[in-house]
């Protein structure tokens, strides 16, 4: 979509006005600074998704809409988690982070801050594997997606 003030609120407003559901949304400018790319995760029947796509296309600032589910695609989400890490727990958490191929990016004597990237379900799995009482804070970006192979979104 056009990288213009208000474009994001048009998309968000459309979803709330028409009762569609936004699971996550991530947006930032692209290599062309006049354009932003948004990845929006939503759910609905085929009819609902068809309407969502059409309604998004109708927004003047939206340049192109693709449904990544139509083809093979890759999606990734970034999560930062701050956890309690004291005593023997410190080693265990370190091992878990390694298993999930994350990294510890900040350390104090009482806590770790962990960076983890992956599909949303991988991030969910990591949180489940952690002792929930140890989790102090989480922040997630929502998924970003791109087509596999030579499939390129061009405007």
């Amino acid at each position, binding site marked *: 979509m056009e990288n213009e003030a208000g474009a994001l*609120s048009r998309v968000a407003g459309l979803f709330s006005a028409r009762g569609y559901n936004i699971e996550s949304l991530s947006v930032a400018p692209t290599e062309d600074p006049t354009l932003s790319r948004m990845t929006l995760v939503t759910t609905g029947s085929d009819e609902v998704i068809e*309407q969502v796509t059409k309604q998004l296309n109708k927004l003047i*600032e939206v340049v192109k809409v693709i449904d990544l589910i139509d083809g093979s695609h890759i999606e990734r989400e970034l999560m930062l988690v701050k956890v309690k890490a004291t005593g023997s727990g410190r080693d265990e958490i370190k091992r878990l982070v390694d298993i999930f191929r994350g990294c510890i990016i900040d350390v104090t004597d009482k806590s770790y801050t962990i960076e983890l990237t992956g599909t949303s379900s991988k991030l969910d799995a990591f949180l489940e594997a952690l002792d929930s009482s140890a989790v102090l804070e989480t922040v997630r970006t929502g998924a970003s997606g791109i087509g596999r192979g030579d499939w390129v979104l061009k405007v």
Partner: protein
Amino acid sequence: MSVELTGAEITIRCLQEEGVDCIFGYPGGAVLFLYDELFKQDKVRHILVRHEQAAVHAADGYARSSNKVGVALVTSGPGVTNAVTGIATAYMDSIPLVIISGQVPTNAIGLDAFQEVDTVGITRPCVKHNFLVSDVSELATTIKKAFYIASTGRPGPVLVDIPKDVTQQKIAFAYPEKISMRSYNPVIKGNLKQIKKAVELILSAKRPVLYTGGGVILSDAAKLLIELAKILNFPCTNTLMGLGGFPATDKQFIGMLGMHGTYEANMAMQYCDVLIAIGARFDDRVIGNPKHFSNENRKIIHIDIDPSSISKRVKVDIPIVGNVPDVLRELIKFLKSTKEEPDQNALKEWWKQIDLWRERDCLKYDRQSSIIKPQMVVEKLYEVTKGDAFITSDVGQHQMWAAQFYKFDKPRRWINSGGLGTMGFGMPAAMGVQLANPKGKVACITGEASIQMCIQELSTCKQYKLPLKIINLNNRYMGMVRQWQEFFHGNRYAESYMDALPDFIKLAESYGHVGMRIEQPEDVESALKEAFKLKDQLVFLDFITDQTENVFPMVPGGKGLSEMILV
């Protein structure tokens, strides 16, 4: 080196370049520089309304009756919030408007300044698009874009919010001749493969119906629709927004369909085998319960410029996205070049069935009544104006009677708020119609409840000598509310009685207009004749009508089209 102009000068120059001859507005702090420039020129005429809602309705009526973009100018804050009802009305009916609103200076935005409101935020869900002009260098291009977006594709209102300091800044003026936007390219031509498929289906039809809506009016496709219907000899029904798209006096016309549509139109719609929907959107007031509608087996062709209107409420078999006239031209070309035609015997049987439904005479009412029947007033209005008037309406029973009993043979003659259902629309819209058609006969069919929602515009009509004929069907009730309360709420008429009504005659006279009260059926025709003889005067005709009359047929909410309540 071109001369530098201020933002205010540029705005007015842009309007001139767009050929705008008339705008509707109300001044205020944030738009004073714009008004100053309006004052200094005479190409763009400004009509001063008495409330911003009326400015937008008037621009709307102007646009609907002329196929030009309507323009309104309002100030920031309350100027904009007052205009919102008008903007939403135009949005729901896809009317091309450009609304220019003043905004507090850019350095005051966000600081809760006097008369500040987030105009772009407030209007976002009810415009086709809106802009905040933050620099004078963007002003001319933005206004060009606004007119382009408003009038192309599926039309709609576009708002341009201009901060006061932008109207003072100076820059060299050049109005772009053309505009192209990578993110906005409305489809015009329909897909030929789809059109061919549609032709095959049309040729196989045994019980066809043409169902056409506001899209035919907005795209000026009425002549092509008639040509198509005549080639095929198919029955045609119009939606409330589509009236006048097909001549109501033609024998192929089976009336309006929907909640208060005719028995024959609704039955034909329900039991057809091929439905050709043109510029219509299967909304809840048209097909009733979509599940009930889908119980019958039929194939649907849907022609519309807006892809999101297709398969929204009803799944269709052959969608054709495109500008209605372009698609109809292609359809007609194919039909003329083929030697095949639909099964004529089947078509004859179908017409026989439709004529049987017609015999039900679903719009009958007591013509011998000693109290004035509202339907009779509309019928007499049709006779007296020879069907040649522009009719605006407000919202409620009177609107439905106007739609049922005034036979519109031409497009852009029936002007009403179909989508949003805005009471108060009728009189200001009629002002716009009259200004776009100075020689036209313009009547506003209204009720004593609706008319009071914008009654202040009697003053505007006086100032600009607009000789409207106000047909007030006065039954001392919010009639449609009363009807629903009678049918569905055990006759408990909660707050629907209009008490403490003004003396409309004196009220009209106080504004310098002519008022007439008509209480006897035998006086209806002569009063109307007399009113239309007063060519230069607004005449307020207060018809005291039957309080208990209801609109029939009626498809109750949630019911199917064939489940009508009949009189």
